[in-house]
Structure formats: structure tokens, C-alpha cells
């Protein structure tokens, strides 16, 4: 009975689905409940995916895909979009066969099934996880046009699991026990040394993320959570914890994850992730499409050393700064969302964000970092990012001085 009427010329899309007309999805029933027993995003969001940079690595099984930060909001990363970093591909572990072994300098060596692990007291915590190589491609200058690629080796989910301390107490660490070897069940048998102080502090053996079982690419059925420390330590598909009196100096803490300084010496055991922030929108993949006027700058800040204290935003490449608004929970070693809202006059901007954490640490400029570290340290690039917003709203990754 309804007849299709004309609509103002300004808007886009299909007029037949716009007022005064009734859209097609109002006229007929959609799919029923439980037709999708496990839901998925709308087909109109098909571009919101993890992406890799093919030229980075020789093989996809030892590589990285990046979280589409420019498409996300708030502080929780949905499980399907958490960045991946594998060294031997995704281990498809059958939980019935998986075992966690704890041995070495302990009174009571222990072997646990997943079901047994779940019997130990549980903790729930929201934490960011950042690869130490995040932003590593940018040391020599702006290289990748998009915060998905420059900053997308990070995610933040709620973990449920067992405090590592609980299990170490159950096994009874001997007085001589100073280091843990933590090892995965993947084809890389990823192994790392973890100092006992951190192991007894806030680490978790997690089996759930955002409420449900870990996804396979995140270490199903169990992974180590090492809050605030580099992602490489968060061993996935965790199968073994060995207590020893010295570090192992495994390949991932010698050949990799050591930071080469201009002197030729390299820093080792650079575990903690310093305070860092990035503007996720506008950014190269999320340009300003609305022209001048009220504009929202949305971004993420975090610190491996505690809570975010404040974030400031600059429109002129770091000359002047304005306090941003922190919105939503501000949690320990978790992503924190900030906003800066302003009236854009349509002139080009050099957008930056700068975080200060509760220890007083202020995110340095890239110049300040390079002055100390040079450009060959690969890891721990937490320098201030600059986005050049052009008059037409396009955004590019630039270096300023």
C-alpha cells in the first residue's frame, strides 16, 4: 500500500530504503534465532579484518597480522580481530591431549590437564598485549600508511585463568629457583626465560579470553599472560614451565628481542612495554570525510608500568598540547581510550598524542628516542606518532622536525 516517494538529493545510498520509504529489511522477516549459533559481523563490515604485510616475512607461518585499530572503539578487542604473531603457524591443539608440565627446581613436579587447571582458583583481568616489535618498521622514518600497520600489534581482552603464583606454590619453588623457562606446544616450541619475581607477581595462565575459550591463534587451550611485558613472553599453547637458577638465553631473547644500540652493544631482557599512545582516528585508513567542523580525535594509550595518568593531543606537530578526555575504565596495564574534540577549520594538521603514565613516564618523541637508541634497535618503538591531516581530510603518516 505504501508508495515510494522522492527524498532530498543530498544523501547517498538507495532512496527506496530511505525515508519516507520503508526499507526492504522492514518489509520481510530476517533470519531467525540460532540460525547463526555463533554470530559474525555484518557483511557490510567485511573490510574490518586482520591484515598482514606480505613483504615483511618469508612465510606466513612465521609472521604477523595486525589488529584493525582504526576500525575499533573502546578498550576491548574482539577475539576475532586480535593480531596474530606465530613462529610456526597456528597449533590446532586437541585439549584432551594437551598437558602442562611444571618441573625443575620444585618440590613437587606437576602435570595438569586443561580440566585440572580449571580446578585451581580463577582470576579475571583486562590487559593489553603488545608485541615488542610493534611500530618497529618506523624506526628510520614513516613507512606504513595506517595505524593498523604502524601500531596494530596490540590487543586488549579480558583473561580468565589461574595465577601463575598459585601453581608455583602448589609445585613448591625451591629457594634456588630464580628463573622459569616457559615453552609452547607449537611447531616453534617457543621458549623464553621469565624471572621469578614477575612469575610470582601478576602472571596468569589463561584459558579464556573475553569470556570464551582462547582462539586457536591466541594459544588455545592455554597461554601465559605477562601483564605489561612484551608479547613474545606470553607463550601460547603453553605446555611446560621449568624452574631453574639461571636464564636460558633462548633464541627469542638473544637473536631476537634484544635491542641493538648505536654503540654496537645490545640491551637484553627489555621486558616491559613503556607508555605509548596512538590516534586511531583520524588516521591514514580512517580519513576525515565530513569536512571542517566539529571533529573527534579518538585514540588509545597504555603503559606496561601501570595506569594511564593523562593524554595530551597536539594539532601542530608537538609544539602545543591540549588535554584529552579519558573515557571508560582506566585499568592497570590495559588499553585506555581517549578523545579530543575540537572544531576543525579545514586547515592541515600535524596530529600527535602523548601519554603520561602513573609512574610519571612521558611518551618521548621519535627524535628523543633515536638520540639514545639510534634506528637499529627494532623493538620498543614507543615514539610519538604524527599524522598529517590534509585539507581534503586525507591523512598520511609523516615524520616531522
Amino acid at each position, binding site marked *: 500500500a505504501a508508495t515510494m516517494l522522492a527524498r532530498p538529493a543530498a544523501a547517498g545510498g538507495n532512496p527506496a530504503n530511505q525515508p519516507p520509504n520503508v526499507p526492504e529489511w522492514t518489509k520481510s522477516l530476517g533470519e531467525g534465532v540460532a540460525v547463526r549459533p555463533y554470530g559474525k559481523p555484518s557483511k557490510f563490515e567485511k573490510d574490518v579484518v586482520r*591484515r598482514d604485510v*606480505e613483504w*615483511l616475512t618469508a*612465510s606466513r*607461518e612465521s609472521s604477523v597480522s595486525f589488529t584493525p585499530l582504526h576500525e575499533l572503539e573502546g578498550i576491548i578487542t574482539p577475539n576475532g580481530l586480535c593480531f596474530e604473531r606465530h613462529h610456526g603457524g597456528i597449533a590446532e591443539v586437541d585439549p584432551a591431549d594437551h598437558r602442562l*608440565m611444571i*618441573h625443575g627446581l620444585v618440590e613437587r*613436579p*606437576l602435570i595438569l*590437564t586443561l580440566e*585440572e587447571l580449571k580446578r*585451581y582458583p580463577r582470576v579475571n583481568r583486562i590487559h593489553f598485549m603488545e608485541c615488542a*616489535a610493534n611500530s618497529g618498521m618506523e624506526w628510520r*622514518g614513516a613507512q*606504513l*600508511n595506517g595505524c593498523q*600497520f604502524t601500531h596494530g600489534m596490540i590487543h586488549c581482552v579480558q583473561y580468565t585463568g589461574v595465577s601463575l603464583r*598459585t601453581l*608455583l*606454590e602448589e609445585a613448591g619453588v625451591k629457594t634456588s629457583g630464580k628463573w622459569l623457562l616457559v615453552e609452547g606446544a607449537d*611447531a*616453534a616450541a617457543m*621458549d623464553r626465560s621469565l624471572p621469578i619475581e614477575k612469575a610470582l607477581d601478576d602472571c596468569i595462565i589463561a584459558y579464556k579470553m573475553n569470556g570464551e575459550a582462547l582462539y586457536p591463534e591466541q594459544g588455545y587451550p592455554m597461554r601465559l599472560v605477562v601483564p605489561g611485558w612484551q608479547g613474545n613472553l606470553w607463550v601460547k599453547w603453553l*605446555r*611446560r614451565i*621449568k624452574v*631453574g637458577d639461571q636464564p*636460558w*638465553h*633462548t*633464541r627469542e631473547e*638473544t*637473536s631476537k628481542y634484544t635491542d*641493538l644500540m*648505536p654503540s*654496537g*652493544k*645490545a*640491551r*637484553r*631482557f627489555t621486558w616491559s612495554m613503556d607508555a605509548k599512545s596512538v590516534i586511531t582516528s583520524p588516521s591514514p585508513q580512517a580519513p576525515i570525510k565530513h569536512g571542517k567542523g566539529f571533529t573527534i580525535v579518538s585514540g588509545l594509550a597504555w603503559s606496561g608500568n601501570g595506569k594511564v595518568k593523562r593524554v*595530551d593531543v597536539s594539532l601542530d606537530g*608537538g*609544539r*602545543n*598540547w*591540549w588535554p584529552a578526555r579519558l573515557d571508560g575504565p582506566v585499568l592497570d596495564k590495559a588499553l585506555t581510550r581517549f578523545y579530543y574534540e575540537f572544531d576543525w577549520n579545514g586547515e592541515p594538521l600535524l596530529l600527535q598524542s602523548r601519554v*603520561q603514565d602513573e*609512574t*610519571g*613516564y612521558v*611518551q*618521548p618523541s621519535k627524535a*628523543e628516542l633515536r638520540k639514545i637508541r639510534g634506528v637499529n634497535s627494532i623493538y620498543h618503538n614507543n615514539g610519538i606518532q604524527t599524522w598529517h591531516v590534509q585539507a581534503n581530510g586525507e591523512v*598520511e*603518516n*609523516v*615524520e*616531522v*622536525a
Partner: protein
Amino acid sequence: QQKADAKSGPRYHIGRAPTTDEIRGWDIDVRPDGQGLPEGKGTAMQGEKLFMDNCSSCHGEFGEGNGRWPVLAGGKGSLTSDNPVKTVGSYWPYASTVFDYVRHAMPYGNTGSLSVDEYYALVAYVLYLNDVVTDQNFELNKKTLATIKMPNEQGFVMDDRATTEKSFWQKDPCMNNCVAPVKIIGRAAAIDVTPEDGKEKKSRGVE
């Protein structure tokens, strides 16, 4: 932060003790002092053929790395250069790491497919390619491997950010006229390696 007490603390009595066999089966990690090295032996001479058969397709016949696959040898003296080449010989502090890693993780895609003697021989060959082992018939075994000194062992310092980067801790961050007016000095667009293009591009300085 409290020290965990081996004797006290809650005991849940959940799980069981692994057998010594079970532990032995998984406990194959190796430390710089040689702890964890298995019985066995091999020489660079023996390792050469094994390397050609199992490794060179990716790492090159001389460990030079095919395409983007990792370089295993060379790079000596490059650590202070513009393009450091970090290899077993130029960078790695301990020989034990080569054994530990290769036995765990190589050959890529077919890990653990070789015998302990074969791994000793391969490690000897990789060290030979790096001039760390110079005698092709030097027998690598649990005793000798632990005695090998790597050229860059002294090349590492503990994380010193708390002192060398002390200036990053501040009371109140600067808010006005913090730097002189800035200009754009580099653009990602100029390099043009962002994936959207669908083109395969070479990057600078990326690992």
C-alpha cells in the same frame, strides 16, 4: 612482593606428578653452561651434507639466506653500521642457543625430524660457517659445546632504560611552545610499501 615459599601456601592436590620418562621426553632445553645438552656428537664435516639436504633451500648453502629467509652467517663488524647483519657469528652470545633452537624449531616445518647426532653436526656446521668452529673435524658434544665462546658474548647489557632514559620521567609534561615550529621531513607515501597497493614492495630497515 612476597617470596613464594616452597613448603607453605595452599595445596590443592590437583594434577599428578609427571613420570621421569615424561619429563625426559619434553625436557630438551639447553643452557649456556651446557645444562640440558644430550649425549651425542657431530662434526661440521658431517653437518655439511645435512645442511645442504635440510637447510640450504631456505638459508642458502653458506647460510647467506635465500630471498627473505634468515641469514645465518656473516655480518661480522656490522653491528655499528647502518645495516647491522645479526647472525649466529656476528650477534649470538651463546652457542647453546643454536643447539636449543635448531633442535626445537628446525628444519622449519619438519621440526625434531633429525637425530641428536645430526643436530650436533648441523650446529657444528653453522658454527663453522661463522668461523666460530674452524676445524671441520672438531667434535661437538655435550662437553665441547659448553666450552665454545661466541665472538659477541660481551655485546649485551641488561635493560638500562630506567637510568639511560631517566629524562623520560617528568613531573608535568610541557604544554606550550614545547618545540620550534616543525615541518614534514618524511612521508610513508614516498616509500609506498603499504599493503593496500596489492604490489610487492621492498622495505628499508625492517626485520
